């Protein structure tokens, strides 16, 4: 009997967790991807500044830029694999993908500059611009995610209200 109760409890916890993790809205996923991309671009900008000021080793800067690129690729993949059901989410996804792409290009330019191709200093404005864009988009995505979460919670509490929102 105790075993059955334990099994039921485990299944319930796993189901609840699966429900909680699986119900992330498109805006929430895009918010996470934007945050991940912003962190990577800001990291790249910081290490480029350090390299320009001779405060870090080229090997460390190169490794850091490689890590930033990996994070941007992961963020880009997550954003591009996000399913949307509203046109506003689709627009947000496009904007996020563009900004991540810009950040990725800037980080790649910085990596190239570390290898002697081009100027490292010239990459700093691109990195800062990409960071600004991602910051704006993160704010947008965060607001959209909060709205989506609020409407989901409202739908959970009062199904009819959700239906009204859906009809509207």
């Amino acid at each position, binding site marked *: 009997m105790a075993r059955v109760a334990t099994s039921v409890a485990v299944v319930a916890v796993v189901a609840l967790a699966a429900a909680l*993790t699986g119900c992330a809205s498109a805006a929430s996923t895009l918010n996470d991807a934007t945050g991940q991309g912003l*962190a990577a671009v800001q990291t790249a900008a910081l290490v480029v500044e350090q390299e320009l000021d001779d*405060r870090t080793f080229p090997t*460390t800067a190169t490794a850091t830029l490689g890590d930033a690129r990996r994070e941007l690729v992961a963020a880009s993949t997550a954003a591009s694999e996000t399913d949307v059901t509203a046109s506003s989410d689709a627009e947000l996804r496009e904007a996020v993908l563009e900004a991540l792409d810009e950040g990725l290009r800037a980080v790649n330019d910085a990596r190239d500059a570390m290898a002697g191709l081009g100027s490292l200093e010239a990459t700093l404005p691109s990195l800062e611009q990409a960071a600004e864009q991602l910051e704006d988009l993160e704010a947008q995505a965060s607001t959209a995610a909060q709205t989506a979460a609020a409407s989901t919670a409202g739908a959970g509490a009062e199904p009819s209200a959700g239906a009204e929102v859906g009809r509207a």
Partner: protein
Amino acid sequence: MKKLFAVALGILTAIGGFVDIGDLVTNAVVGSRFGLGLAWVVLVGVVGICVYAQMSGRVAAVSGRATFEIIRERLGPRAGLANLAASFLINLLTVTAEIGGVALALQLATSVDPMWWIPVAAFGVWIVIWRARFDLLENVTGLLGLTLIVFAVALFMLSPDWGSLADQALRPGPPADEPVATYWFYAIALFGAAMTPYEVFFFSSGAIEEKWTEKDLAKSRLNVLVGFPLGGLLSIAIAGCAAVVLLPASIDVTSLSQVVLPVAEAGGKVALSFAIVGILAATFGAALETTLSSGYTLAQYFGWSWGKFRRPARAARFHLAMIVCILVAVAILATGVDPILVTEYSVVFSAVALPLTYLPILIIANDREYMGDKVNGRGMNLVGTIYLVIILVAATAAIPLLIVTGAGA
């Protein structure tokens, strides 16, 4: 004078040896997301590891037996085996994380892809375990690990707003943009990083390796009670550096290269050199300790001949087990899995497995048959019981929080 030197060396190696890849990564992640809002967990974890290590060291010194010998004897072969399986698997995960950490540290110094460094790191760990004396491997890595003090120096050099840092530390709680579940998930991760079970396997087995007796108890108590708290301060300094430099720039830590950014920001190349040497020593030292702990746990449970004080030929299964562990760790890392991800999981599962070894040690530390008049006093039992509750709560909550938060995403 010789005794004083030995005590000082013990304390210094305890400080330098306290921080490993789990502490480095988790503290930096937490600092970059919550500031010093989880510093209290480091304090709780440090007191916990002091209680745990002090009890297991005393048990080893008085009874002459290490943790897993006693666990098997006390719990019986079946329960002991289940305990061994869980503890061994967590330890193996930690070996993997530490070897990956060595490779990442070498990448920072050379920019060569860590995949190339993994076999080199693994070979280095094996050859040192095979050839070096126990005290040598413990002291050299522990002393070199002291260079991580550069994180504390960097924190001062960054001239932070101390009032704001103190406010974060004294008013714990999640920031507005972080869910409560994520906050508690990282609290458990930080607790697991501070109270990693391997530290205790290594500490108690080291007591046998170094032939401790009751006379050495005072020295061991000093090592633990002074060395570990100072190591904990280092952990808080790592979180503080991340809170000052990375948090305002919205940089969530996901790689080791980000952990050293504040140090370079504060002290340039000189400070960065110290940080890289420190990380290399800390991860390499922890890789040695975790690998040895894998051998210790298996050999102690199955009754094999073990110990660095024996020639490898006289402890063949002990050494073979460690070689297999290193190879398995290399195989896991060769799949391309991110060592930082392995680290994050290893600290959480450390918290999950903690009661399995903590509880038997607490019971034996109260058993007069083993301990004679060196059983726990009332105060120690009170603290030990409070920690048992904390450990059980953390172990129970860890996996649900891991799932609900998507591993703290």
